[in-house]
């Protein structure tokens, strides 16, 4: 019982923490972000497993976490408003070639971030080649080049 409740508590706390911190919190996984993620995992471990080193405890905790994630996914699918609360919505940053400055400022995305994505995925060099740029719910930036 305690293992399930512990996993539930940690799930909710992590969900809240990352959701409130914003989309792009750990997305641009630089080496630093990766190490930070490891430390988060390390810090969570004790709270999750407590003083119990048994296999059964580990399996119970993992099963509960995966089950919760599945359940959250289903609830999001079933209730779109809840989905928006948990997963946010996508934001258009460049609309038909026109940068929407206020939105970019709010989301802390600059033109360089968009160009980086454009270079990596489409081999685009200049801003005027970008027709649409969308900040997705996951925190990644999708770029649609002009002439498509």
């Amino acid at each position, binding site marked *: 019982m305690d293992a399930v409740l512990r996993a539930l508590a940690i799930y909710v706390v992590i969900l809240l923490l990352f959701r409130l911190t914003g989309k792009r919190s750990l997305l641009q996984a630089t080496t630093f972000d990766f190490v930070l993620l490891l430390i988060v995992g390390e810090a969570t471990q004790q709270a999750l497993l407590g003083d119990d*080193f048994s296999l059964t405890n580990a399996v119970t905790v993992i099963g509960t976490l995966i089950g919760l994630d599945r359940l959250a996914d289903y609830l999001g699918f079933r209730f779109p408003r809840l989905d928006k609360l948990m997963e946010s919505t996508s934001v258009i940053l460049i609309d038909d070639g026109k940068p929407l400055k206020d939105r970019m400022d709010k989301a802390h995305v600059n033109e360089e971030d968009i160009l980086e994505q454009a270079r990596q995925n489409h081999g685009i060099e200049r801003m005027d080649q970008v027709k649409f740029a969308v900040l997705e719910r996951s925190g990644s930036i999708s770029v649609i080049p002009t002439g498509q």
Partner: protein
Amino acid sequence: MHDTEDPRFQRREWTVERVWWAVLALLVVMALLGVFSAGPLSETTTGGPDAGVEVEHERFVRDTGKSTWTIRVQPEAVQNQKATVFISDELAQAMQIQNVAPAPSTETSTRAGLMLEFDAPQADSPPVVRLRFRPDAIGVREGEVRGGDLPAAPVWMLFYP
């Protein structure tokens, strides 16, 4: 594009997936109920007025986890201001005892099991012993706990890996 699809396989996968989700949900409910350690289905009391002790314990524990017994010695089991609690070897071997409160005045380990003796100055309020331990076995263990010379309380426990 359609060559990459295998609708029959995909349908089967979806079915298996849904069965697995049900199993997963069932496992979590079982864990909540205490089938895999702490929880209402796990907590049990053995012994009582007919025996020398009443033992409150968890039926299901996990190897290298933790568990606590509450042993209530019956007044009839107190002799000469001493209360003895005996734990049979099958159980004693499976318990890494970490703490006994109150502390026993003597501890004796024999082939038969572990004997703990407590001071009991007042015969009408015999000691309530809390024994904290780390389970150290896998599988089913059956044994008994005795208070004084009175009939024993049987204990059945399942140790998960």
